[in-house]
């Protein structure tokens, strides 16, 4: 079989989503961000929302998300994405607005903005990447860092008496009357990624139906920050992260 025969259109089983730009991402090998970006790009395209979706990028590893998905973006200050999204959504009710935030952005510095946007039931989608570490700044403790987990600022492991406990913020958000859909997903296997895409799609459909705030937490990895190979990182994720942060829907109205 020649290459020309292999690349015939009828043999195509997978392609890069149309809305992913040509920019090479800055993410580390094995990082979950790239997969989630792809899923978000596919969902926006499949729902025909390219022209009326506005993304709000965080501060954290996904700070450059706006370089990778070909829609309008606003880069928010650290933790403020839900407030930024609140205003855009209210002022542009015909558009779909989503935030893309990490654990430090959403569950530490931006906790107030997150909880209050969700509590007001802002008609937005929150994509929350939980990898239990501050990736961009070099692997410091995140609010979701597991007990015993070593980071640059918990070099001997996170201790409850010194650092408090890992926060399950999606569980908190599910308690709020303003959220319509809170789910915890993962992308470390193809099957999980497919399921995650379904969740992201449902969240965007909720926004189109003006149902309130949808939160898709993606329990993800950080091979660089965790100092593990991508493969080992996924094993660690499966063993430790999903034990503390079990996958599945927390709320679906």
């Amino acid at each position, binding site marked *: 079989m020649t290459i020309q025969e292999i690349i015939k259109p009828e043999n195509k089983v997978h392609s890069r989503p149309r809305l992913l730009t040509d920019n090479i991402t800055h993410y580390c090998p094995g990082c979950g961000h790239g997969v989630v970006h792809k899923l978000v790009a596919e969902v926006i395209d499949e729902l025909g929302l390219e022209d009326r979706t506005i993304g709000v990028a965080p501060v954290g590893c996904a700070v450059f998300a*706006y370089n990778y998905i070909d*829609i309008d973006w*606003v*880069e*928010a*200050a650290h933790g403020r994405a839900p*407030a930024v999204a609140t205003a855009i959504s209210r*002022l542009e009710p015909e558009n779909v607005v989503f935030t893309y935030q990490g654990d430090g952005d959403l569950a530490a510095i931006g906790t107030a*903005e997150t909880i209050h946007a969700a509590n007001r039931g802002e008609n937005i989608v929150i994509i929350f990447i939980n990898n239990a570490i501050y990736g961009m700044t070099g692997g410091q403790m995140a609010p979701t860092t597991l007990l015993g987990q070593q980071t640059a600022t918990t070099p001997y492991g996170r201790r409850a008496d010194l650092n408090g406990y890992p926060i399950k913020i999606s569980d908190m958000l599910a308690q709020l009357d303003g959220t319509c859909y809170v789910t915890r997903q993962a992308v470390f296997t193809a099957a999980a990624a497919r399921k995650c895409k379904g969740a992201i799609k449902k969240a965007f459909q909720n926004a189109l139906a003006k149902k309130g705030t949808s939160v898709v937490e993606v329990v993800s990895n950080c091979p660089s920050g965790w100092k593990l190979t991508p493969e080992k990182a996924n094993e660690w994720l499966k063993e430790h992260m999903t034990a503390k942060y079990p996958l599945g829907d927390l709320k679906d109205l």
Partner: protein
Amino acid sequence: MEEIRLMKGNEAIAHAAIRFGMDGYFGYPITPQSEVLETLEEQMPWDTTGMVVLQAESEVAAINMVYGGAAAGKAVMTSSSSPGISLKMEGISYLAGAELPALIVNAMRGGPGLGTIQPSQADYFQATKGGGHGDYRLIVLSPATVQEMTDFVGLGMELAFKYRNPVMMLADGIVGQMMEKVVLPDFRPRRTEEEVREQCPWAACGKHGRKQRNVITSLEMEPEKMEANNIRFQEKYKAIEENEVRYSEFMTDDAEYLIVAFGSVARICQKAIEEMREQGVKVGLFRPITLWPFPTKQIAELGKKVKGILTVELNAGQMIEDVRLAVDGGVPVRHFGRMGGIVPNPGEIEEALKAHFMK
């Protein structure tokens, strides 16, 4: 239709915002400016003009809502008082860095810290010299009357869009809380989505057929590009300095002494001058209306004609630095101020001028 009303400065801001066609107001209660949000909630403009009004969970959230609205090309504003403005400084720096138009009102109260709820002008440095991080400037308008509180909503928003730069209306507890006659402007319709897209081709409001995506950000990792951004900002600031200086004068033509004061305090100074003129003392008043850009040239010119300049401020002496820079040592410049929420009366100002220059 234009309408003459008697109202507080804070209430006038709310009415002016609705009539200007403001798209959104985001605020958090703090004395002495809570009437802005209260009046907007009472007027329910969402039912008439479609304006969005939202009580945010904090000043931080409010300014970031303003950032989001401005990023989408909308005419948006917030208001607060000194401690709340400190919280907003992060967002204000981002607005400047992302070159977004917005109006921020500060009805100043005495500080530092929680301070007092009484009037002050102690945030002059914060408003005109930075406050937030980075090399940026705000256009700073200083209203002295309830009418100016009204007019500067429209003027501020126009300047904000003209230069894609945040504008601060630096008011104080006096003009916020006092009532006087005000002519409210005509109702102006809010811009349609099409008009926003046409007038703000940079806005992140959905591509709607546009080929290139719009990205609003203040981030630029490459130092060369970040420096280029800064150079562009500075060029813009230079244009603002050349074109947007505003001020007013009272009896400066034959003045031997000059009082420089801004905001409501300038009115108290004017009263003192009226009384001194009756005694034959030749004093004039110069009131900067734009605190940035500062009327440096105009004060330099007046400085050549007078024997002394007294700045009167509700602080320990902040604007005096700009006045001294303007006259460049050419004439003595002295300060009289009250702090912590105390407002001087005309008699004290007269005494201060005489003590400094007519001993």
